[in-house]
C-alpha cells in the first residue's frame, strides 16, 4: 500500500499505534502519546530486549529466541510480544530487558533467565529481584528506568526511538509520528521555510565542527545547478564513539526521513548514506528500512502526492578515519582514495560528481524531524546561548556506567561523569577525561564544572568532536595516551600533505623515545615545536588537530612528561621501561607467591621474611603485583 497524503499517514499512524501503546517512553517534552491498559483480546505485555551491538555480543539474540519459545510453550504468545529494539545506551549492564506497561527494567539478563522471566514475571506477576539494577553508590535496587541516575538527567531527542521501537518495522516508527515531519514539510511548507526553521532552531553540526546546519542547507540551495545531493556521513571513525552506529541501528527511518526533508529543502532528489563496512548490523537495518520506505511510497517518486522525488542509496566505506572529513568522504564515494582537498570549493558549491552537495552527520539528521514537528522555539529553548539542543556522548573508559548518554547542552562534565556515569570504576581517583577523540584534548578535575558546549570545550583546550568521552583514572599514563592517539594518527594519515604524513610520524617517534626512557628535555621542546608546525600547516582537519592530545596533555600534565624525561620514571607504571617494582617490607609476610610467579626469578628471600626484587633483572611484567594478596608489591 502506498501512502499518498498526510491524512493517509495519520490513519496508518493511528492503526499502528495499537501495537506500541503499551510502551513507556523516555522522558522527553515533545512526547504526547498516552499509554493505556490493554483490553481482553489485545496483546497485554511487551518484553523489550535490546538488540544493539553491545547486547548482541552478550547473547541477546539467544535470549529473544528463548523468550519466544517459552512464551509459546506456556501458551502466552498471543498475549505477550517480544520486541527487539535498538540500543538502550546502558551497554555496561547489557543485555537489557524492559517489560511494559509494568515499566520494569532488568539488567545483565542471560539467555537462561528467560524461563524465570516468563514464569515469574509474566505469568505470576512477580518481579525478579536479582535482575534489577543495583545503584552502585547506595546499593539500592531500582525498578524503573526513569529513576536510574543513568537515565534521570538525560534528555533524549536524537536517541528518542532507540530502545523503544523495533527498527525493522516501519509501522512502529510511524506510530511514534514517523514521517509526519516529512509529510508536513512537503505539503505545508516551502523549502525556504524548512531551512528557516532549522536555522532558527540553532542546530549545529554534530559531527564535531559545529557548523550551523541551516546555513549549510541554505548555501547548498543557493548553489547553481539542478542536480544536487544529500549525503549522510556515517563514517564514525573516532575510536571510542558509537552514537552514530546506535542511531542507525536503533532508528534508521529517522535518518531516511530527515535526509528526504533536507533533500526537499536544498533541491536534491538523491541521497547517500556513507557508512563504515565495519558496521554490518547498521547496514542490514538501513537496507531493510530503505526497502520498507520504498514499498509504502515514502521514498521514491511523488512523495505525499507532491512532485517531489527522493531516493536513498548506501555507499560503503572501507576503513579510513580521514573519510569522516567531507571532501575525503566524497572522493571515497567516487571510488577513489579518500584524500581530502583544499576548501574552497566547499561541497556546497562543488561536491559529489562535481555537483552541489550537502554533507551532514548522522546525529545531526536525527534531530531534524523533532525540530520540524515541535518548532524551532522548542529546540532553541534547550541548551546554552550558542549551542542549542542536546548532544549524545559515548561514555567509556574507567567509568562505572559505560554507555550512550544524551544530555542538554550546558550540562557539566561532573554531572555526566559522576551522576549519569556513576563515577570512576573500582573507587579509583579521576585523572582526566578525553573528548573529541584523536582531535581533542584532555580535561582535568579543575574544569569538570564547565557547562558543555562547542565554545566552552574549545576554550579549555579540547573540543566537542563527535562525542567520544573517554574517562581515565590515576592508573593511566598521559604520555602513553598521547602515544596511543599519535599511533592512530600515523596509521590514518592519508599521506597527501607532508606536515601530517611526516610530522606526525616524527611526533610518534619522539613520544616513543620518551616513554621508553630515552627522552631528553630537547625532545620535549622539539615535540612542542612540531605540534605547532603541524597544526598550522596541515591540509585538512585531521592533521590540523592531530597534535591536540599532545598539546593538552603537555599543558595539564607537564610534570608527568618531565618525570619521564628527567627522572626516567613513569608515575603510573604504564610505561614498562620506566616503571620500578619494589616490595614494601611493612606489608610483606613472606608468602613466596611473588617469587613463584616471577618469570625471570628476580625475586628472592626466605619464607616468612621480606622478599626483595632485583631491579637489574626485573622485566617489569607485573606478575608479582597481580600475585600479591597483601598489597606489598609497590607498582609505581
Amino acid at each position, binding site marked *: 500500500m502506498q501512502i499518498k497524503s498526510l491524512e493517509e499517514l495519520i490513519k496508518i499512524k493511528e492503526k499502528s499505534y495499537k501495537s506500541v501503546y503499551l510502551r513507556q517512553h523516555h522522558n522527553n517534552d515533545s512526547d504526547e502519546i498516552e499509554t493505556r491498559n490493554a483490553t481482553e483480546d489485545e496483546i497485554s505485555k511487551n518484553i523489550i530486549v535490546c538488540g544493539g*551491538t*553491545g547486547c548482541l555480543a552478550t547473547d541477546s539474540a539467544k535470549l529473544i529466541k528463548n523468550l519466544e519459545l517459552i512464551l509459546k510453550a506456556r501458551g502466552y504468545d498471543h498475549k505477550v510480544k517480544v520486541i527487539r529494539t535498538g540500543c538502550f545506551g546502558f551497554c555496561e549492564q547489557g543485555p537489557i530487558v524492559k517489560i511494559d506497561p509494568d515499566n520494569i527494567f532488568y539488567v545483565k539478563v542471560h539467555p537462561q533467565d528467560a524461563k524465570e522471566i516468563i514464569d515469574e514475571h509474566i505469568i505470576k506477576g512477580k518481579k525478579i529481584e536479582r535482575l534489577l539494577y543495583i545503584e552502585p553508590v547506595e546499593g539500592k535496587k531500582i525498578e524503573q528506568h526513569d529513576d536510574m541516575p543513568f537515565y534521570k538527567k538525560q534528555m533524549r531527542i536524537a536517541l528518542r526511538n532507540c530502545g523503544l521501537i523495533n527498527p525493522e518495522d516501519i509501522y512502529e516508527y510511524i506510530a511514534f509520528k514517523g514521517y509526519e515531519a516529512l509529510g508536513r514539510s512537503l505539503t505545508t511548507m516551502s523549502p525556504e521555510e524548512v531551512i528557516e526553521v532549522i536555522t532558527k532552531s540553532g542546530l549545529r553540526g554534530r559531527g564535531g565542527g559545529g557548523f550551523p546546519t541551516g546555513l549549510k542547507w541554505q548555501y547548498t540551495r543557493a548553489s547553481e545547478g539542478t542536480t544536487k545531493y544529500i549525503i549522510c556521513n556515517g563514517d564514525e571513525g573516532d*575510536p571510542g564513539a558509537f552514537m552514530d*552506529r546506535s542511531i542507525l541501528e536503533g532508528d534508521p527511518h529517522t535518518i531516511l526521513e530527515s535526509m528526504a526533508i533536507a533533500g526537499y529543502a536544498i533541491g536534491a532528489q538523491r541521497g547517500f548514506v556513507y557508512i563504515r563496512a*565495519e558496521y554490518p548490523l547498521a547496514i542490514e537495518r538501513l537496507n531493510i528500512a530503505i526497502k520498507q520506505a520504498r514499498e509504502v511510497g515514502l521514498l521514491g517518486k511523488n512523495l505525499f502526492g507532491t512532485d517531489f522525488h527522493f531516493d536513498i542509496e548506501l555507499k*560503503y566505506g572501507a*576503513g579510513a578515519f580521514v573519510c569522516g572529513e567531507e571532501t575525503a568522504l566524497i572522493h571515497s564515494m567516487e571510488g577513489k582514495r579518500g584524500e581530502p582537498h583544499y576548501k574552497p570549493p566547499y561541497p556546497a558549491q562543488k561536491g559529489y560528481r562535481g555537483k552541489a552537495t550537502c554533507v551532514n552527520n548522522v546525529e545531526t539528521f536525527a534531530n531534524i524531524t523533532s525540530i520540524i514537528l515541535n518548532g524551532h522555539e522548542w529546540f532553541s529553548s534547550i541548551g546554552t546561548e550558542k549551542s542549542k539542543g542536546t548532544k549524545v556522548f559515548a561514555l567509556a573508559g574507567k567509568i562505572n556506567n559505560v554507555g550512550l548518554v544524551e544530555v542538554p547542552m550546558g550540562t557539566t562534565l561532573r554531572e555526566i561523569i559522576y551522576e549519569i556515569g556513576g563515577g570512576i570504576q573500582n573507587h579509583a581517583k579521576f585523572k582526566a577525561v578525553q573528548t573529541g577523540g584523536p582531535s581533542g584534548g584532555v580535561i582535568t578535575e579543575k574544569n569538570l564544572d564547565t557547562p558543555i558546549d562547542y565554545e566552552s570545550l574549545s576554550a579549555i583546550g579540547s573540543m566537542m568532536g563527535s562525542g567520544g568521552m573517554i574517562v581515565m583514572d590515576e592508573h593511566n599514563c598521559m604520555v602513553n595516551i598521547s602515544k596511543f592517539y599519535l599511533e592512530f594518527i600515523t596509521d590514518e594519515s592519508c599521506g597527501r600533505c607532508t606536515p601530517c604524513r611526516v610530522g606526525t610520524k616524527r611526533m610518534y617517534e619522539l613520544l616513543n623515545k620518551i616513554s621508553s626512557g630515552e627522552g631528553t628535555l630537547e625532545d620535549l621542546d622539539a615535540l612542542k615545536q612540531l605540534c605547532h608546525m603541524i597544526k598550522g600547516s596541515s591540509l585538512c582537519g585531521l592533521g590540523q588537530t592531530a597534535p591536540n592530545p599532545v598539546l593538552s596533555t603537555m599543558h595539564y600534565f607537564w610534570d608527568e612528561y618531565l618525570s619521564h624525561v628527567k627522572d626516567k620514571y613513569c608515575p603510573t607504571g604504564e610505561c614498562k621501561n620506566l616503571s620500578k617494582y619494589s616490595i614494601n617490607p611493612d606489608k610483606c609476610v613472606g608468602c613466596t607467591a611473588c617469587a613463584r610467579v616471577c618469570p625471570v626469578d628476580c625475586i628472592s628471600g626466605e619464607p616468612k621474611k621480606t622478599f626483595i626484587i632485583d631491579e637489574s633483572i626485573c622485566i617489569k611484567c607485573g606478575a608479582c603485583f597481580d600475585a600479591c594478596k597483601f598489597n606489598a608489591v609497590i607498582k609505581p
Partner: protein
Amino acid sequence: MPKANFQVEIPNTENLPKEKFNELKQYIDGLKSTEGALIQILHQAQEIFGYLPKEVQLFVARALGMPGSEVCGVVSFYSYFTTEPVGKHVISVCMGTACFVRGADKIVDRIAKKIGIGPEETTKDGFFTLKNIRCIGACGLAPVVMVDDKVYGRVKEEDIDDILDSYRKEEA
C-alpha cells in the same frame, strides 16, 4: 554510462579458481554503471576471494579499463582491504580508546606470545590471523576480542588461553 570491458582474460591459477573470477565478472556485469564503483567492486571481490592479491586487482583494473596502479592505490589506502590471505580464524583485538585504557595492548601481547605471531600476521599453519582493529563500538564490554564473528567482552589476560584453545580443540 561506462560499462565494464569483458574482453579481459580470466587468469587461472591454483589458489585462485576460475569460478571465483567468473563470479566477480558476473557481479561487475550486473552493475548499472561502473563509474565510481571501484570500492564497491573491491568489497565484493574480497568477499569472494577472501583477500585481494595482485591477480584480482589486475583483473578488476582491466575490467574497468583503469591502470592497475590506481586499483592498487585504492586497495592499499583502506584498512578494510587486505592483500594477504587470512587464516581460518581471525582474532581481532579492538584497539579503540575505550579498550586501550582498559588494557587492550596487554591482551594483544598475550595473544601474540601465545600463538607466536604479531598483529596483521597469520600463523604458519594458516589457523589464526591476528588483527588490531579500530573500535567495534562495544565499548561497554571493553576490552573486547573478536574471534571471527564471536565477541568476547571484558577479556582478561588469563582468559586468552581458554578462548584460543577452544578453537584448537574444536578443530581436533
